């Protein structure tokens, strides 16, 4: 894994998926939320794409940190602080690590991101937030890495696990975010942020071996 180019691929895929799914994420958030998730993510990640060339690329950690600052500062709603925190925490782990990042480091980055989100927004597992998707997804990655699978295979099982976890939020009662105000009525539809994470994971899996990723790797 050539860390910077992987980070670039991952960030670009997340950003592009957020922009492409503006309407879908908005609709998901309007079932029991307030419908702004798609708009917030799309506008914020548009800025990431617009400023793409300007981010410091000293190393993967620095790159992720610069992206995280943009997301934290420029995305509105709950998503800006939450997603921004995730990027900033991942960046810290990456920066603390010298040299190339391995699968274990990616898992550590994700765990730190989750802790950051919990600290920032006060949510726990089971509160029907994107944490309930990030956690099983991270477990799947950890297991894939432990059993020596290749990147594409790891990502595929991460995506499958994210999708299943997103669907598993359907019967939960929302205890955080706008959906929480509806109490029992939040039962019956999946958490919007959680589905967004699953859609992004699927995009990463689908494109892992695509020329954009592999050529980028080669180019570096």
């Amino acid at each position: 894994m050539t860390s910077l180019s992987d980070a670039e691929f991952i960030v670009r895929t997340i950003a592009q998926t957020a922009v492409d799914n503006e309407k879908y994420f908005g609709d998901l958030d309007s079932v029991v939320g307030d419908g702004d998730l798609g708009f917030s993510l799309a506008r914020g990640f548009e800025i990431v794409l617009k400023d793409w060339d300007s981010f410091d690329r000293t190393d993967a950690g620095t790159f992720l940190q610069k992206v995280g600052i943009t997301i934290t500062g420029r995305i509105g709603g709950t998503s800006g602080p939450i997603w921004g925190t995730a990027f900033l925490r991942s960046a810290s782990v990456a920066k603390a690590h010298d040299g190339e990042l391995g699968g274990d480091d990616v898992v550590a980055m994700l765990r730190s991101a989750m802790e950051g989100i919990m600290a920032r927004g006060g949510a726990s597992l089971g509160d029907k937030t994107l944490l309930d998707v990030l956690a099983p997804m991270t477990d799947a990655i950890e297991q894939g890495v432990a059993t020596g699978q290749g990147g594409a295979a790891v990502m595929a099982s991460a995506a499958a696990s994210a999708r299943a976890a997103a669907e598993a939020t359907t019967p939960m009662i929302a205890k955080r975010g706008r959906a929480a105000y509806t109490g029992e009525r939040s039962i019956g539809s999946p958490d919007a942020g959680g589905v967004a994470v699953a859609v992004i994971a699927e995009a990463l899996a689908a494109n892992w071996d695509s020329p954009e990723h592999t050529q980028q790797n080669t180019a570096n």
Partner: protein
Amino acid sequence: MKKFVNDPQQFVPEMLKGLALANPDTLTYVPEYNLIMRKSGPSDDKVSIVQGSGSGHEPAHVMVVGPGMLDAACPGDVFAAPPMDYVYETTKLVNSAKGVLLLVNNYTGDRMAFDMAQELSLADGITVKTLFIDDDVAVKDSTWTVGRRGVAGNFFVIKAVGAAAEAGADLDELMRIGEKVVSVTRSMGLALTACTPPAKGAPLFELGPDEIEIGVGIHGEPGRRRAKIAPANELVDILLDPVITDLPFVAGDRVALMVNGLGGTPISELYLVYGIAHDKLEALGISVARSYVGEYCTSLDMAGASITLVKLDDEIEGLLAAPAEVGVRIF
């Protein structure tokens, strides 16, 4: 969607531009941060007061910037808390030697943006305090939720601390006053129709032709339950009873009574609601000393209304009566 809108993404900036053009002598618009501030700028003799929130609640808060009210407002996009940068930049622009008071309706996104901006501002040496507003009785204040929402009651907090700040109160004093007003303010709303965010282009939820949504928030989030439309007398009971019993308001209390329109309900209906609510309160021995009827905190084009009660004491009543001047006016 039938609205006066060009590019939905430019809805908020175009509205803010119009607001600034209509009030060239009193307001400054900083497009980069969705920021509306007093043209006169901050003064070191006065604490600066800022409120941010999602857009779509106009006149809250961009249209209540002016003497006796806010020094600046920094809205996010429609129903989205402002990005942290907007809040941080606003804080820097209105920085005063007496400090900056940030007023925040209690929503996760807003809390986080303002928390982070406050941290950055403090690190810059700016004195900042943040006051959270949570007047909505529709939301149960139990441990597992994020607490109550801030809705139309925020008007009274702005008005009270705005008046006190103008009179020279310091930041701690404003916090005390603001917390006191929050502690005696309660609201409850209901929707007759859903609202349509420009970027979504369709109503946020579906309501049948005879259905209403009770306990709705100001972001088109569905409320606690659905009911059939009923005569105004009953609708007023639905709004007033949980407000009265929550604090509770009791015989002998003096109150301010606000009937707030959610954006699509004409003022004729709001006055009709006011008359009913006024009579019911007086019948309970609660005397209405100040009345507020109109749009204070809306939810785009949603038809519906909320009722807010504030229990008055001499201090609060005096602050509410103090003069103020804002960009929205009819003269």
